[in-house]
């Protein structure tokens, strides 16, 4: 990588209609500066893939508020009445995915697997349209891999080689999504010289990251 880019440059890379995975759990561990830049750019028609739609005005909720989102693949929208309103109005197509299934579908997508077999959702509306596969007498759903055009990560530290660390519950979906975006953009809290993060401390190998967001100036 030549240099870190600004959040606005990152937002300019993401065309209208793109699919975008984003880290975050109720807005914690989300790439907030990139979100602000996507809103400022006035992006439209995005398909967002992440755990939840946070709250109005918080995290990915800003993209919902600003009308950037056409579809959401998430496990939960209960904390964001704007998502619910736009879903009912037909402005956002919401696909609800059990949280553990969402994590495994992203992991499958990023690690070259053809899908995962999970007991979660068997016998519920989640099973609709999916293959049921019996293994050793137990029923599982075949859940297909998820990939996206972009993965937007929030990291704690990044070194000059883009090796990443995460903090506490801000980790959530970020390390999984690092494998599943065709273009991976990481927004770190801190940028440190190579060697500051010991090899054992690296949670996402820098080789996966295409762009690092520069320090706030």
């Amino acid at each position: 990588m030549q240099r870190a880019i600004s959040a606005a440059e990152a937002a300019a890379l993401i065309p209208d209609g793109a699919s975008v995975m984003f880290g975050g759990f109720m807005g914690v561990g989300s790439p907030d500066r990139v979100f602000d830049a996507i809103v400022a750019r006035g992006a439209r028609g995005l398909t967002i893939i992440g755990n939840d739609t946070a709250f109005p005005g918080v995290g990915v909720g800003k993209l919902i508020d600003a009308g950037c989102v056409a579809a959401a693949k998430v496990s939960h929208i209960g904390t964001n009445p704007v998502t619910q309103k736009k879903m009912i109005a037909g402005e956002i197509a919401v696909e609800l995915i059990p949280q553990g299934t969402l994590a495994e579908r992203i992991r499958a997508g990023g690690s070259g697997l053809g899908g995962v077999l999970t007991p979660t959702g068997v016998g519920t509306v989640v099973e609709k349209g999916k293959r049921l596969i019996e293994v050793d007498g137990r029923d599982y759903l075949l859940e297909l891999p998820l990939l996206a055009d972009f993965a937007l990560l929030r990291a704690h530290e990044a070194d000059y080689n883009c090796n990443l660390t995460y903090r506490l519950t801000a980790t959530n979906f970020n390390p999984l999504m690092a494998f599943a975006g065709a273009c991976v953009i990481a927004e770190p809290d801190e940028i440190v010289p190579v060697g500051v993060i010991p090899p054992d401390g690296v949670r996402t190998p820098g080789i996966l990251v295409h762009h690092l967001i520069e320090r706030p100036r």
Partner: protein
Amino acid sequence: MDSKELIARRVALELRDRTLVNLGIGLPTLVARYVPQGISVAFQSENGIIGFGAPPPTGMEDPHLTDAGGGFISALPGAASFDSGVSFALIRGGHLDMTVLGGLQVDVAGHLANWMVPGKLVPGMGGAMDLVVGAKRVIVAMQHAAKGQAKIVASLSLPATSTRRVSLIVTELAVIEPTEEGLLLRERAPGVSVDEIIAQTGAKLLIIGDVPEMPIVVAERDVA
């Protein structure tokens, strides 16, 4: 004592020493206040931590340290944090001893519905479907009825969370154990008669002999 506190104090008696427990958002969270003396429980929050405690003082919160509802928490000594893949491997993989979840309905087969009301409320299942499938014990902690409508019903009118039979239902009126034969009335709340429970229940209850009064945890601990 209000009904939520009573439910939490009764559910707390189900906690066992040296176990991993996940508490759902809302009423189930209260259970952490009533861990019985002499019992050590590790609480998991599915957004990626085991071993969390009470929120820090105002102004000292860590924006990277929250529970599954987005509220600030602290990490106790010995806590572990991890990503969502690991969190749900713990839940689905048989490593979670118990989960306590809220409920909208439970039917006579012990099936739980707790993630949506079609046309009205569509919060999504979050981690609930994985929790019900994967936890060794599933405890439903909920109000016995809502706005005069029974929540314990003959068959679910709401979309099910799982086809798994839950382990126990604790309400402010009763403790009910779903069994192969049906819903067994195990305990009644202090001052509540069996007839009152039957009147507020929309499914047949199995009643064997005298139904004892529900014991509860009396002491409150200074924890989450």
